[in-house]
């Protein structure tokens, strides 16, 4: 057959059609299609979580100092969920996003799984896995050599807090070793503690009976943004009585401001002036608690000392803070100041609370004193709905310390940070001063070895560049972090601690609580990796150092130490997980003060007033010397706190970062909030890329227009801009500490920098 074009097409078509028709008669395509669809329904890579009997174990959250009770749900031996513990006195079942995502910290990619020794340059990320024996020996050898060279005070230790038994153990270790340099960040609790000591002569923390107050005047405290114990604060808000009023004073419409009965915008940093202005009106209109003022206070009116010198009383001092003047300083209209003062004084149980945002910035002592004076004017001291002194946790007495000559000599050296010196006699720790002091020393750093426990100073200290420079001068840095945070990433050795849920930790009364509690976080799971409790690591090092250092630690391990230290409470705590200690409600205790006058002193003693010419001048309003030239930097940068972000030593979980709004973080860039009016003057629009410049540094940001912020301000969220950790957090946005430095309070040395001058320009 001749094959021409026509034939070819005909036969081919016939063959194709025939073939197609033929194949339809066979089951092959149907079977194949069925197989394909079954195959596409197989997902061998999708995990099938193992089932098992469901049980619950109770413990406490240790991710922030909030001390909330948690209930961990187990399936078999696996914990699958953390929920709030309903009958815990602090949080009563409520938990914050961080606590709820607690399992991500245990199982997540940020854990340090074994002791590590740095291989490459600092911060390069090259590590060698070493054994615990090698790690502990390395640290012991270094510490032994510092003692040998009669230089024990050059060992410093940075902890996250001074509260609880682990910091006490570290304190004991440093003392017997011979170093006074136990440092930790100060918070508003420290400023309030000092204010308490000055006015009432008592040591203790300031508790706020928010449960029973009916008029809460919050000077920028983010009571719904992570202030105090977040679990407690959320619970209180949800169950508050309808007559409770919350007045929120701050320049930005925060979540707290949004939920408050009233939000009052104020020029940033001028809250202290407002407090004095309110006191002015209350005194001028005679609205204060006369019984309390007359019988239980000192220094309300002018007074003359034994030497015949007349001193200014509080009533005279606040005369200078007329509503007109305060209105000029704060930007709050005069009638509003007056009506606010009247409402505050007229309420049966008014309460002034302080600490900006989450209260991580201590602020000045003057500010604390001014705000506490409002509680004193209404006589709301140790009263229901008022402020309470929560006594410091007392522990069982440990065996006496024997100290050798090296240790005694070391302990006689002044602290590096100047805390407790003549300049700052009442201050316990000034970590914020450390980088500056190290950097100002020519030659060798006064810190030759640094231990970092439950802290991440490379991220949380203001002025990151200065901190890095200071750390570069420290030859030996050991991090005890459970996670690869900024400081761990910059350390020479990492001796990883167990994570939350894996370790014992006692939690004293959380910030802001009005009565004393002790909570015990009990391990509910076995440690996942080759980690060691820092308490155990330190006891081991102490024992290896020998001599008096060894003798100071007769305990086999941290658990024995803890049981011994908590003595009477230990069995109770192991059984119940929490102990409540009711406040002393006897009248004698309520209104007894340990000051020189045995009264509440409005005008505290001279020692704190270093910065003032009149050494006996009472507290007043002195604005913080915010950095930056007004002409070059026409705007003010203020950091803000959010409950979905953590700016503290334990960073965000992946779940927390997932909840962050698209108006806060976009890909790798932070959005800054500015008022549309301000944006207009800068020719910036929603979504514009911009460069944020401050005297401390620069950052690329995206502009977000927000009506809820005072014109002239730029708001930047705290808790972003990590350089360490895994891809779920690293490289996202800007760290506020890169752009903001520390400003010292002349009276206490505390950081009072609520912001910095800044400029925003189109990129």
């Amino acid at each position: 057959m001749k094959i021409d074009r026509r034939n070819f097409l005909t036969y081919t078509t016939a063959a194709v059609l025939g073939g197609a028709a033929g194949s339809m008669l066979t089951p092959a395509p149907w079977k194949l299609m069925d197989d394909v669809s079954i195959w596409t329904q197989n997902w061998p890579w999708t995990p099938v979580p193992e089932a098992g009997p469901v049980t619950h174990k109770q413990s406490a959250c240790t991710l922030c100092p909030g001390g909330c009770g948690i209930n961990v749900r187990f399936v078999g031996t696996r914990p699958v969920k953390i929920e709030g513990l309903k009958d815990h006195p602090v949080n009563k079942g409520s938990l914050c996003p961080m606590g709820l995502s607690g399992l991500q910290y245990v199982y997540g990619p940020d854990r340090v799984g074994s002791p590590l020794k740095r291989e490459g340059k600092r911060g390069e990320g090259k590590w060698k896995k070493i054994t615990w024996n090698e790690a502990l020996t390395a640290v012991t050898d270094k510490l032994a050599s510092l003692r040998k060279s009669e230089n024990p005070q050059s060992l410093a230790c940075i902890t996250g807090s001074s509260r609880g038994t682990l910091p006490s153990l570290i304190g004991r270790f440093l003392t017997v070793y011979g170093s006074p340099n136990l440092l930790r960040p100060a918070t508003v609790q420290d400023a309030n503690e000092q204010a308490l000591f000055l006015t009432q002569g008592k040591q203790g923390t300031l508790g706020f009976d928010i449960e029973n107050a009916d008029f809460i005047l919050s000077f920028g405290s983010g009571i719904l943004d992570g202030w105090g114990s977040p679990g407690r604060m959320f619970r209180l808000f949800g169950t508050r009585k309808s007559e409770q009023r919350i007045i929120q004073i701050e320049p930005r419409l925060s979540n707290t401001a949004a939920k408050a009965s009233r939000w009052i915008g104020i020029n940033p940093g001028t809250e202290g002036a407002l407090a004095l202005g309110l006191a002015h009106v209350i005194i001028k209109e005679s609205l204060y608690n006369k019984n309390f003022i007359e019988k239980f206070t000192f220094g309300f009116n002018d007074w003359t000392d034994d030497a015949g010198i007349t001193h200014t009383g509080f009533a005279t001092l606040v005369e200078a803070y007329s509503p007109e003047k305060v209105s000029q300083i704060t930007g709050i209209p005069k009638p509003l100041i007056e009506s606010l003062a009247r409402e505050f004084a007229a309420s049966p149980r008014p309460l002034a609370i302080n600490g900006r945002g989450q209260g991580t910035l201590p602020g000045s002592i003057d500010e604390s004193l001014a705000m506490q004076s409002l509680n004193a004017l209404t006589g709301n001291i140790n009263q229901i709905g008022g402020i309470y002194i929560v006594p410091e946790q007392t522990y069982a007495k440990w065996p006496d310390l024997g100290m050798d000559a090296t240790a005694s000599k070391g302990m006689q050296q002044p602290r590096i940070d100047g805390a407790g010196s003549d300049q700052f006699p009442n201050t316990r720790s000034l970590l914020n001063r450390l980088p500056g002091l190290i950097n100002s020393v020519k030659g060798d750093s006064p810190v030759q070895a640094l231990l970092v426990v439950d802290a991440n100073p490379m991220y949380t200290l203001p002025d990151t560049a200065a901190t890095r420079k200071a750390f570069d001068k420290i030859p030996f840095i050991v991090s005890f972090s459970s996670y690869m945070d900024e400081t761990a990433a910059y350390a020479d050795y990492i001796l990883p601690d167990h994570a939350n849920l894996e370790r014992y930790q006692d939690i004293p009364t959380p910030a802001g609580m009005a009565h004393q509690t002790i909570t015990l976080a009990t391990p509910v799971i076995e440690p996942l990796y080759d980690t060691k409790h820092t308490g155990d690591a330190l006891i081991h090092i102490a024992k290896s150092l020998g001599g008096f250092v060894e003798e100071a630690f007769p305990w086999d391990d941290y658990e024995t130490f803890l049981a011994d230290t908590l003595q009477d409470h230990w069995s109770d705590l192991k059984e119940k997980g929490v102990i409540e200690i009711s406040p002393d409600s006897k009248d004698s205790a309520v209104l007894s003060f340990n000051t020189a006058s045995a009264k509440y002193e409005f005008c505290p003693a001279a020692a704190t007033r270093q910065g003032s010419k009149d050494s006996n001048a009472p507290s007043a309003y002195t604005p913080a010397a915010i950095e930056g030239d007004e002409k070059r930097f026409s705007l003010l940068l203020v950091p803000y706190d959010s409950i979905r972000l953590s700016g503290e030593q334990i960073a965000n979980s992946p779940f927390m970062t997932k909840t962050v709004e698209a108006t806060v973080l976009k890909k790798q860039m932070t959005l800054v909030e500015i008022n549309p009016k301000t944006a207009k003057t800068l020719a910036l629009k929603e979504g514009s890329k911009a460069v944020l410049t401050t005297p401390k540094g620069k950052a690329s940001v995206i502009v977000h227009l927000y009506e809820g912020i005072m014109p002239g301000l730029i708001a930047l969220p705290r808790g972003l801009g990590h350089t360490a950790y895994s891809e779920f957090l690293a490289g996202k946005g800007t760290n506020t500490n890169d752009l903001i430095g520390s400003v010292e309070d002349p009276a206490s040395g505390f950081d009072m920098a609520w912001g910095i001058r800044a400029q925003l320009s189109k990129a």
Partner: protein
Amino acid sequence: MKEKNDYEHSKRYGMVIDLDKCTGCGSCMIGCYTENNVPFKADETNKLDSINWIQVYKLTNGKPYPETEISYLPMPCMQCDGEGKLGHSPCVSVCPAVATDYDYSTGIVSQIYTRCFGCRYCMAACPYHARKFNWWDPVWPADMEKYLSPDVSPRMRGVVEKCSFCFHRYQLARNKAYYENRQTEELGEDEYQTACAEACPTGAITFGDLNNKSHAVYQLKNSPNAFRLLERLETNPKVYYLSSKKWVRRQGDNYLANEEPGLIKKIDKQHH
């Protein structure tokens, strides 16, 4: 065979969210993630591909400083009853695979991942953006697979997922009731609660049977401050919101300048 709609006697689980109590903390979202094995990625800032069964939105009254107000609005799946409350919710009506269905005994709209083939008609039909698509296979880095719950199967690339009102918790409660020789009708209010309601630290979310007079939601939904989203569409959501602020209630639907919020509720009553 379609089940019969015994609307008066069946359970109708629903939610009342008090926006006056919602602080925007995001705990409901995280409570949901951990309960329902919701995955996460390194970059979750593109909210269009971020999987959330409940998502907290931020509303503003748009007024200049200092008159500005904001309110948060958590949005789970609205579990629509559909027009005439017959179970014709927008997504169920369009699903070609019966991967999503209306359960007449509880009023809960299900999602069956292994049936879903990812056409996303339901996402287009849903007026509330409650449905999310798995563009990627989920990955739990490090040892995170160890904390996954066996009560909810992890999803895979190519399927749609959404809030189930924690239906597995209903199943567990029901099983327990059967085991104890009780009827499902006798399930107590606290025996079946969603994870978000339990996680909300201020107690803004109330969950229960809208048909049961003894459940808190029954009264709450009749509050003068109660509203639902886009009521005009007659999707009949079972999620109600409470807000004392009129500007918030106004944002619940596309009101004309001369219309008042609450108007639709009145029309609804006249109709039925």
